[in-house]
């Protein structure tokens, strides 16, 4: 192809420090339509901060974020809200609205942000909950749902906004082992539908089977990147391989 589409999401030279400690030291990445990139690396390497900087939940100190090839003006509230609508976010601890039912958790952003009428919003919300297998849980509050169900509601809520890309910040890390499967199933289903995703995870099955590219982060920089088939090949001696081996040992020990 000679005419290349601009990446859906592009991050150029992102810097962030907290109290003089540099957390991100010039991170760049590109996410094309339908691509799935997985961020791995030790705790404290800056994965969460990177994801939160991409949709400006944490304001980066320097750098550019480009949506469909256009730089986002981070000083303008409207362009920030647009960025956040188009780049959905899934959190480790779900962040469902505690005072609203599963259904209303999805309806409220549709109404407030997309200005969709109540009836249409409710229809969409029911559809999304059905997609993640929670059609019978619409009227339950977050306190009445299991961790896996909460994460699935959070995903339905993010997807109802029709995002162009999804950022996932360790979506399975806060879940009990027996609940991880249901969330992984939803993520795999999304991947099959061609959703563009950038995901930080320690879930080996997601890394190996879904990733088009692995980004290995260490001390605020992406120090290694490549396809899983290359990086995780036996004898590749990559940092990613070492890291995944250690994850494997841990999960083998547990099972």
């Amino acid at each position, binding site marked *: 192809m000679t005419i290349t589409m601009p990446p859906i999401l592009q991050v150029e030279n992102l810097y962030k420090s907290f109290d003089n400690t540099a957390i991100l030291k010039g991170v760049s990445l590109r996410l094309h339509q339908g691509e799935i990139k997985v961020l791995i690396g030790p705790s404290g390497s800056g994965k969460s901060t990177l994801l939160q900087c991409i*949709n400006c*939940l944490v304001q980066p100190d320097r750098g550019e974020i480009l949506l469909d090839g256009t730089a986002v003006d981070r000083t303008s509230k409207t362009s920030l*809200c647009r960025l956040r609508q188009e780049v959905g976010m899934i*959190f480790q601890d779900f962040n469902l609205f505690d*005072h609203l039912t599963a259904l209303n958790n999805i309806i409220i952003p549709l109404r*407030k942000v997309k200005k969709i009428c109540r009836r249409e919003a409710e229809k969409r919300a029911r559809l999304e909950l059905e997609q993640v297998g929670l059609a019978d849980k619409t009227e339950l*509050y*977050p306190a*009445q749902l299991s961790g896996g169900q909460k994460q699935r509601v959070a995903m339905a809520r993010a997807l109802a906004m029709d995002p162009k890309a999804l950022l996932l910040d360790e979506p399975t890390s806060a879940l009990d082992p027996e609940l991880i499967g249901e969330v992984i199933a939803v993520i795999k289903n999304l991947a099959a539908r061609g959703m563009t995703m950038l995901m930080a995870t320690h879930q080996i099955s997601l890394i190996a089977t879904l990733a088009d590219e692995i980004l290995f982060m260490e001390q605020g920089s992406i120090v290694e990147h490549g396809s899983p088939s290359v990086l995780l090949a036996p004898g590749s001696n990559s940092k990613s391989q070492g890291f995944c081996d250690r994850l494997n040992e841990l999960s083998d020990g547990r099972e």
Partner: protein
Amino acid sequence: MMELFSPFYQELFAALNRGFLMSVALILPSAVGGICIGIAIGSVRVYTRPLFRRLGDAYAALFRGTPLVVQLFILYFGLPNIGLYLSPYAAAVIGFILCSGAYQSEYVRGALLSIRRGQYLGAYALGLTSWQTISSIVIPQAIRRALYGCGNEVIYLIKYSSLAYVVTCMELTGEGKTIATEYFRFTEVFTVIGLYYLGLVTLAMMGLKKLEQLLYIPGFGRQ
């Protein structure tokens, strides 16, 4: 039993019923006004720029730090010095609103600060504005957390409304005291006054209980 129909009791109940209505007329606007001021000042003390925050803190410190009687005296007897004349009723209601608002702002502030950061992150990540996040996500949750403290303050208010009589606003306590002085029968009069307040507080508690049930959401308050 016949005693209850004696001129003393007839006069007492007539006076206390009059005073009761005045007390209710004092309490209702003061409670509503106090809660409104409390929400406004409490939010200012959490969300606004440091300058406004400090002004809010100063208001709360002043009205929580001085006796209500002193505040009422200044409103009623002090303000005329600068040409502001308030009726006894107006002075009492304004005093109660300002005092109650200061305490309410503390409950509201505590409730707002107790909302987890994740609730804001979740909302911002979906594209909600700060204002939408506060009004649709944070305040509905904070109201449920503040309810118990705010209700407590309303119950306090019912009882400190008896201070209105020091600025000559004749409510329950004031009316009763007049009769007690006239007949020199303090014990009976103040016992009956106490029962009136007990009745009022009981009603308020029932109302608050109802409100708690109305606003109940699994995961908030009682399990």
